């Protein structure tokens, strides 16, 4: 007689066997019958052409998803198999879940882009201007390969004495997004770079994926130092590009964007100094012209005054003329003075016999002697 088990006993045995063997499985399939009740947990099935697997996605695992689940989505899920005794069901308790294929990645990209755009992370208003002449340039990229070489070459060509600090990161693969984000944060904590270049060479959407991760977007948005992103080729746009303060089509272009050309700068300063001298040379003649004008004006003013005065003076002159003793002399009068010619003789008591006198006529003078004082 075989041993008869209760349902619970059998379920318990199955549970032990299954859960022991399938502690971690990876499966691929299409999402169907998705239900997401208010609890935040999600229930769905993964299916392929022949079979179906019931799946549970708990709330905390759901929060880690890169994109929202949807029926028809092709995904790769990992987790453990568990047995749910009440329904006699085995199911996958999902730990990680990723969209599979470019279509799904594209979807994840679009979803994050919309979400961050709604949050205002791409707004022009929050973008910082790049420094005019950075003294230290931080570069977050792989320390090997063409990208860093291109950047250093362009910088060398434009400004041979720039200071560049590279924060080396992996630019693709598991954990690379975290490294990139942390490198940006490290530069900010350190504080020395005036600008940060975030760069990666071209690649597929999967290759560039780290730059589409929210973690990276958040680090860029939080950066107090302006960030220039240069990810992939000219036609590739990543989330990092949208959040960055400036997007450069290529790593070389990013280097061009952050660094002015030294010779051009020097030329500009030269030009300015020339202008400065010229403006001084311009100003002084302008000023001396001004002074000339003032002089002329003063002269004219004086002259006018002088003309007025002259008339006045003419009047005075005529008056004086009338008083001029010479004029009286011309009429036949004469002046008699003491011999020294200083004292005019007005009365005879000024005289005594024998005094020598000087007499002035209209024309000439003569000396005479007093013969007799009469009265």
């Amino acid at each position, binding site marked *: 007689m075989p041993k008869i088990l209760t349902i619970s006993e059998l379920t318990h045995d199955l549970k032990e066997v299954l859960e022991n063997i399938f502690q971690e499985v990876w499966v691929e399939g299409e999402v169907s019958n998705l239900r997401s009740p208010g609890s935040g947990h999600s229930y769905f099935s993964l299916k392929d052409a022949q079979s179906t697997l019931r799946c549970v996605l708990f709330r905390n695992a759901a929060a880690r998803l890169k994109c929202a689940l949807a029926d028809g989505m092709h995904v790769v899920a990992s987790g453990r198999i568990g047995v749910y005794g009440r329904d006699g069901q085995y199911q996958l308790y999902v730990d990680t879940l990723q969209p599979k294929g470019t279509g799904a990645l594209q979807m994840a990209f679009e979803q994050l882009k919309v979400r961050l755009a709604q949050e205002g992370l791409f707004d022009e208003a929050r973008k910082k201007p790049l420094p005019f002449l950075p003294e230290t340039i931080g570069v977050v990229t792989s320390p090997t390969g063409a990208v860093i070489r291109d950047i250093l070459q362009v910088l060398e060509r434009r400004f041979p004495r720039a*200071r560049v600090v590279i924060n080396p990161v992996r630019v693709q693969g598991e954990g690379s997004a975290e490294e990139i984000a942390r490198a940006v944060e490290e530069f900010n904590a350190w504080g020395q770079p005036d600008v940060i270049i975030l760069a990666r060479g071209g690649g597929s959407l999967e290759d560039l994926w780290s730059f589409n991760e929210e973690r990276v977007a958040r680090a860029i948005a939080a950066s107090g130092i302006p960030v220039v992103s240069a990810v992939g080729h000219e036609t590739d746009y990543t989330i990092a590009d949208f959040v960055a303060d400036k997007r450069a089509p290529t790593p070389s272009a990013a280097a061009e964007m952050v660094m002015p050309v030294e010779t051009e700068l020097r030329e500009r300063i030269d030009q300015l*100094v020339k202008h400065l001298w010229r403006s001084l040379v311009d100003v002084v003649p302008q*000023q001396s012209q001004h002074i000339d004008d003032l002089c002329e004006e003063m002269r004219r003013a004086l002259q006018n005054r002088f003309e007025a005065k002259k008339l006045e003076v003419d009047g005075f002159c005529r008056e004086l003329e009338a008083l001029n003793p010479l004029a009286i002399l011309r009429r036949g009068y004469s002046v008699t003075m003491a011999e020294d010619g200083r004292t005019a003789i007005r009365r005879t008591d000024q005289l005594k016999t024998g005094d020598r006198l000087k007499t002035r006529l209209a024309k000439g003078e003569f000396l005479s002697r007093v013969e007799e004082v009469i009265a």
Partner: protein
Amino acid sequence: MGFEESLKKLEKIIDDLHSEKISLEKSIEKFEEGVKLADHCLKTLDGMRKKIEVVAKTKDGKLKIKPFEEEA
């Protein structure tokens, strides 16, 4: 003062010097300031040094800056 700021100020001074209202004393004062600014800009350029460095992380999470040597 930053490089860009100095350059902008220098440009402003040149503009001011061309304005007719400025007095001779003031224009000479401005001119001297302009010469100083240009000098400051050139000194900034001259003061820059070439340095290529790389961040190395220490165990305590602090940044250590080392000279960069490109790997072959």
